[in-house]
């Protein structure tokens, strides 16, 4: 399932990084601790978090993540968004909180 398909099915906001919307999602990781994601998220995962600063993009890029989804209506910082567009890694948003959103994405992927 691609980032775009998940985004459409769950009615997510696409803030930026549209170039990567066709990337295949192979799993998910839910965490707000950056070192946790750095150490343990798998390639091709969608990362569910409430962190909005630019370092999330650095991690997404270094770990070859498929996309980031911000929860609870959070929006990316301007420099985060700029880097998402530059790297072509989609940054999406949802009004829901991490637990619910993770469950829905899990169900779509499994």
């Amino acid at each position, binding site marked *: 399932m691609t980032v775009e398909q998940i985004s459409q099915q769950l009615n997510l906001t696409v803030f930026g990084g549209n170039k990567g919307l066709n990337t295949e999602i192979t799993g998910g990781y839910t965490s707000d601790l950056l070192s946790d994601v750095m150490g343990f998220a798998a390639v091709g995962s969608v990362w569910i978090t409430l962190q909005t600063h630019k370092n999330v993009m*650095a991690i997404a890029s270094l770990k070859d993540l498929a996309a980031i989804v911000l929860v609870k209506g959070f929006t990316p910082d301007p420099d985060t968004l700029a880097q998402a567009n530059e790297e072509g890694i989609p940054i999406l948003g949802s009004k829901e909180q991490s637990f619910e959103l993770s469950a829905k994405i899990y169900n779509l992927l499994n």
Partner: protein
Amino acid sequence: MEFKFHVEGGDFTSAGTASSQIKKVLKQINIDPIIIKRVVVALYEAEVNIVAHAHHGDIKVKITPQQVYIRLDDEGPGIENVEKAMQKGFSTASSKVREMGFGAGMGLPNIKENADIFTVRSEVGKGTTLEITISTVNNG
């Protein structure tokens, strides 16, 4: 091949610059993706440690056919108890750093897990030197 980077303490917006550049180089020279991942995780964590704790630091990365050797020298407060700092969950990070999702006490353990050889030398009030070696040859 040798690369040098300078890191300023507190400059979170450029954290990851060295890791990102080294990742590109290792990809270009066709290093095993599993090895690249290990280098990237270790280097990123070490870079963030300088940003989060030190005044400034210098990173040297030396890539040879056998290994990636990384040395990070910083000037800063140093580490009072290296053994404690190596424990998962132990952190001295500020609340600002923690709010960003850093400072969870996972940095040094993450480096250790991904390095083949990892040494930490630190002098309180002066600074810290990390040496990280990751072999690029498949030795099982």
